[in-house]
């Protein structure tokens, strides 16, 4: 969109512009990293973080200093793995041992890799990977153990997929396979992050006892990306929609992109959305276990973006033509609303859930199931932030509280309070102003003692001109009264 286009767009969508400006002007990070206090190597790391991640870089950099570098390094390591796995120009003989051995590579000082194809967008990261390794070795040993463990699991998982010819030709088969794939690319990351949060005491240790909550966090994000990116992936000859789902709607995967199959394609996409929505309540539950504000923002922002993305892709024909994205204004609004507390994140979820429900149509084979999935998330939110209070309702019925009387009482006391504060304000202002005036007069030499005595004598209104002789004599009398 050119500048003119943007101007036109914002002139009819002022709210979008407002959100963007508000975010840019008022956003105050909980923590800001200070490049001046960092080593040259650390600054290098953040350079590659900016280079390789568009969405995560900003939230990572606002993390609590305790976790800032561990998580930045964790991200870069996984990104490095991903860059090797993704690159189809690397032969399997080279790729597999690298993936399986990556946790040991992390211990090798000075290790770099320039075997990526020239088109690989994150090639630079691996060319300078020694920087990441240097920083990794400075991370606290407890955190490092967690990072190494996840790296090993993910590397092996990726190697299994790279080896799996069937997966590479036909894509994902069953829903179980699909969720396993999401586990390797996202669930594991979530697992590592949760352990880091708990280790640093920024999250409730109970989260470790409910691993399905962490898993849902990762699954929800990954599934949303897969649903959104279907066209992009298809153009790259990759398919992540499980056959178990798409084969219910079309015979061949390619048929999804044929406009004459649009209805079937939309039903397929909405079944994918339904599958993702199942994680919604567990994501909210997970976030209730986070204790640090910066960590909360770090986990909540991507979830808020994900629910908004699910809404925009839901029954949207454009998904099969291009990459559909939430608008910049909406994204800024979500950033603002989600980086606060669980209650506002719940509000975001509720808002987008209801929009999904509005777009749901009986023509969809999963119509009722989608409605139920939306209802389930709403019910969960209600269970943590109840609207109704049974105790109050009971009092209402026993007549101990009459709703009308109660309302009137509240209004009355409110009104009384208002009057009280209004009076207080008026009197206060008067006192301050008189104080200032009297003080100023005193400093300028006013004789209040004289005035006071004159008033005591009943002469409230002096019958002589100011500064006249008569006035002067009164002052003199006063000053030398005892003479």
């Amino acid at each position: 969109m050119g500048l003119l286009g943007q101007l036109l767009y914002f002139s009819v969508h002022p709210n979008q512009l407002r959100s963007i400006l508000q975010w840019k002007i008022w956003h105050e990070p909980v923590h800001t990293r200070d490049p001046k206090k960092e080593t040259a190597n650390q600054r290098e790391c953040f350079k590659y973080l900016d280079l390789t991640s568009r969405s995560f870089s900003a939230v990572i950099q606002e993390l609590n200093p305790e976790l800032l570098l561990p998580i930045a390094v964790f991200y870069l390591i996984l990104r490095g793995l991903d860059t090797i796995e993704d690159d189809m120009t690397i032969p399997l003989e080279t790729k597999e041992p690298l993936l399986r051995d990556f946790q040991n590579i992390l211990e090798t000082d000075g290790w770099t890799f320039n075997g990526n194809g020239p088109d690989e967008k994150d090639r630079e990261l691996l060319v300078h990977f020694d920087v990441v390794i240097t920083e990794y070795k400075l991370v606290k040993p407890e955190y490092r153990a967690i990072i190494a463990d996840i790296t090993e699991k993910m590397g092996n998982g990726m190697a299994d997929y790279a080896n799996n010819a069937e997966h590479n030709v036909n894509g994902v088969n069953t829903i179980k396979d699909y969720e396993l794939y999401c586990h390797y690319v996202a669930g594991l990351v979530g697992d590592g992050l949760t352990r880091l949060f708990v280790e640093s005491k920024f999250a409730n240790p109970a989260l470790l006892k409910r691993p399905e909550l962490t898993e849902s966090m990762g699954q929800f994000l990954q599934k949303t990306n897969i649903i959104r990116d279907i066209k992009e992936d298809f153009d790259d000859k990759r398919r992540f929609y499980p056959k178990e789902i798409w084969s219910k709607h079309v015979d061949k995967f390619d048929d999804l992109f044929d406009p004459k199959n649009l209805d079937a394609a939309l039903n397929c996409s909405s079944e994918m959305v339904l599958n993702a929505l199942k994680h919604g309540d567990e994501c909210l539950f997970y976030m209730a276990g986070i204790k640090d504000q910066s960590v909360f923002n770090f986990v909540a922002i991507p979830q808020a973006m994900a629910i908004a993305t699910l809404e925009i892709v839901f029954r949207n024909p454009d998904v099969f033509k291009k990459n559909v994205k939430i608008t910049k204004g909406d994204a800024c609004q979500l950033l603002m609303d989600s980086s606060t507390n669980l209650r506002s994140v719940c509000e975001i979820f509720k808002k987008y859930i209801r929009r999904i429900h509005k777009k749901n149509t009986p023509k969809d084979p999963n119509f009722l199931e989608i409605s139920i999935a939306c209802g389930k998330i709403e019910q969960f939110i209600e269970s943590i932030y109840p609207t109704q209070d049974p105790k109050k309702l009971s009092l209402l019925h026993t007549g101990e509280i009459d709703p009308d009387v109660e309302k009137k009482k509240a209004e009355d006391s409110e009104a009384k309070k208002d009057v009280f504060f209004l009076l207080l304000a008026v009197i206060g202002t008067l006192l301050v102003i008189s104080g200032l005036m009297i003080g100023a007069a005193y400093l300028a030499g006013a004789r209040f003692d004289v005035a006071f005595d004159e008033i005591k004598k009943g002469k409230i209104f002096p019958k002589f001109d100011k500064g006249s002789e008569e006035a002067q004599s009164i002052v003199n009398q006063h000053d030398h009264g005892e003479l």
Partner: protein
Amino acid sequence: MAPIPTPEKEKLGKVIVIGGCGFLGHHIVDLLLEAYKCTISVIDLRTTRNRRPDSDNVQYFDADITSLSSLLPIFEKIKPHIVIHTASPAAIGESSESKTKLRNEMYRKVNVDGTQCVIEACQKTGVKGLVYTSSASVISDTEADLINADERWPVIPAKNQLEYYSTTKAIAEANVLAANRSLASPSLLTCAIRPAAIFGEGDMQLIPGTLAAYTDNKTGFQLGDNNNLFDFTYVRNIAHAHLLAAYALLVTTQSPTAPLDHEKVDGEAFIITNDQPVYFWDFMRAVWKAAGNDKGTDHVWVIGRDIGLVLATLAEWGTWMVGKDTPFKRRIVRYSSMTRYYDCSKAKRRLGYRPIVSLQEGIDRAVGFWLEERKTAGEKKGQ
């Protein structure tokens, strides 16, 4: 969904199902036969409909529960361990005042007096467990929303209850629960099941009412914004809950120690839902769809709640003046635009309740049954 209770059938001993030829009652009889080891007797006003074949060995007794003398001989003959009391007239709004009066009189007679007779019969014949079918409407005044309500929500007292049917259910429920370990008969344990908006095969209200809108081509209206979640419960899940409760009561009587407060079943009421609240009109549309409707929502006119109430008032007055009745009532507008869903965690915790049939499956079965009925009715007419 979980399979029906356990592979090893639980024993319930001798069971009487009161109202066992009714809508819910005959589903309870079916489930008892399928999933439990027990001998079954049924008491109903008329035992001609919904009868099991003789090979199932279900004994049927015609009796009027409002008369103790009619009940007692049967109880004395059977000596039941468990009594499941589901008998209740259907809750239907009436048009004219005189009709309403008659109907209310019947509600009181059957629900309050009848249930009292059942309690006395149980106490006099050493019954161990009595499960009473109450209604989730005892905590609804038909106007205020119920948002994720559970058993802590207050039962609406008579003066605030706009639906007399619910008042009588609430009184009967209180009487049943008061009879638990009472002085009159300390060995009798009781509990109440409160189903939320029951539907299923043979249902006379929800499914036929909803489908009438479809056959009359009235699917193009929506009252309210349809953000109101609602619980609809498939009949077999409710039957399942009754039997779990009956079994729990039996286990309690056999246990040497009294149960802890947080796991108590006797003397308690349980809200039972499908645990799948949906938006009100989505349920309607799912029912229409199961009956063959292929329309989306493009043709739907949305009438806001307030405007709907005004229109309904006008319709009620208009038809009253010409001496007719309208199906478009304020009551309907309120009902279809209110939020009314529950949290059935207590039943899950204490009874081990989980719905055994999903909402979609329940709708398919109920509508399939209705379509079949209509076909046979059509054939009969055609002959």
